[in-house]
């Protein structure tokens, strides 16, 4: 593809000014973290075993939650974008509920369903002896609950943007709906799925409220980085800053890495 030749153009001040302020607003808190970071004691703090445990748990659960969201969210987005059914508008509104719900409320709601006395949880417990709260699986569930709307909305948008006539073309070539979905639709919206998955992963990584409410806080099992940061804040602000910086650095590195090789190649 040819790109239009770069052209020097005047950027209107009315746009430049708020844009600059917006960037500043987003970046300044980060600068605050960097300025106040205890650089001299940083190596010692990084070496503390709890830090790496929490970081690994965070990365693992966020990735697992993203996979869960992709597995369930892409079909859901397809349903919303491609199939006419009564109550579709309501379903679409329901999908966004976790976005507006305070995460803590989401955590309580998850307890009411998957908890020991929950609607499904009590059945899971008596039938299979499975109890989700206070487990790593519970962390994944809480993160997926909060992050799924990001994926569904991104993928549904991509599906609506994709020309459905490609699917018709596939049908005339002998492809059934499932084959059309896997061979044509999915590759067409792959950039949208990737973007949605990245958003989803980032949201899952930063998840706090639903996680601590549903999965609790136990080092090595359910204590993710945001939980560790929150608790560090109780006693040692500098430790909290260090943990925040680690989470930030790792996530920015991963997101930037993915963007180059995966998202940006559309």
């Amino acid at each position: 593809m040819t790109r239009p030749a770069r052209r020097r153009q005047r950027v209107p001040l009315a746009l430049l000014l708020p844009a600059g302020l917006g960037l500043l607003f987003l970046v300044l808190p980060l600068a605050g973290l960097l300025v106040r970071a205890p650089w001299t004691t940083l190596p010692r703090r990084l070496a503390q075993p709890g830090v790496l445990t929490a970081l690994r748990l965070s990365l693992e659960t966020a990735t697992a939650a993203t996979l869960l969201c992709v597995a369930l969210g892409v079909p859901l987005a397809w349903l919303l974008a491609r199939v006419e059914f009564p109550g579709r508008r309501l379903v679409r509104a329901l999908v966004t509920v976790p976005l507006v719900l305070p995460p803590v409320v989401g955590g309580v709601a998850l307890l009411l369903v998957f908890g020991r006395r929950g609607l499904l949880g009590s059945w899971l417990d008596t039938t299979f002896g499975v109890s989700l709260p206070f487990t790593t699986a519970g962390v994944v569930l809480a993160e997926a609950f909060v992050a799924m709307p990001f994926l569904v909305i991104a993928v549904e948008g991509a599906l609506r943007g994709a020309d459905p006539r490609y699917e018709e073309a596939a049908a005339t070539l002998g492809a059934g709906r499932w084959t059309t979905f896997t061979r044509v639709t999915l590759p067409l919206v792959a950039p949208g799925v990737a973007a949605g998955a990245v958003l989803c992963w980032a949201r899952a990584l930063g998840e706090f409220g639903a996680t601590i409410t549903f999965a609790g806080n136990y080092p090595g099992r359910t204590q993710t980085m945001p939980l560790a940061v929150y608790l560090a804040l109780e006693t040692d602000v500098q430790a909290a800053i260090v943990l925040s910086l680690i989470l930030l650095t790792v996530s920015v590195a991963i997101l930037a890495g993915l963007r180059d090789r995966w998202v940006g190649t559309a």
Partner: protein
Amino acid sequence: MTARWIRAALAGVAALSLALTGCGGADDEPSAGTGGRVTVFAAASLTETFTKLGKDYEAAHPGTKVVLNFAGSSALATQITQGAPADVFAAASPATMTTVTDAGDAAGTPAVLVRNQLVIAVPKGNPDRVAGLADLARPGVKVALCAEQVPCGTAARTALAAAGVRLTPATLEQDVKGALAKVKLGEVDAALVYRTDVRAAAELDAVEFPESARAVNDYPIVVLKHAGNPAGARAFVDHVRSDAGLAVLTAAGFQAPPNR
């Protein structure tokens, strides 16, 4: 829980904006005497009692206004050391108070206001027949503790050590209310929390245990150095430490300090 954290953050932002605008509103209020506005930062576990004490104080001192900011002690201490304009600080543990005194933000030495003791919170009727700390280590009994970074967690650790009980909790909650909620929702069978917390929760029973005497938690209170209304601050502290004030606190389950 998080709502409290958000509230604390908002209070911080509000405090910061006040500081930036040069202590707005201070000019049109009396700078001396016990009148005017008293801003009190108090530990979340003092929410019910201090709300009542604040009303009593306002009634006793017409023309005054008590502004209360409740949050986790640690969050409050952080806000105070970062320059939030508060007159009085009441903490849930000496450790958090130390953060403030070490930073030189206290005027004078903190006094112990009340003490709080740990109890075992169980669902009403105590279905698991928990009688003491040893029962919490029984297999199949799920327990919520506070994280050791917060005062109730430190106290729980001390008490368990004193009893020689080793247990693996299901979760280490970020504060007392979190531990309490897990019992209320039935996700755990028991939690180590403060007596005052259980007294405020109708659906829970408290199981007292002897080792709690080893893990008594003091609630210190102090007038802050940068108080905008030092006279009002002192008057408010005197009020809550008076016999009438103490009666409100003990009615809620707090214990009077040893010297009273």
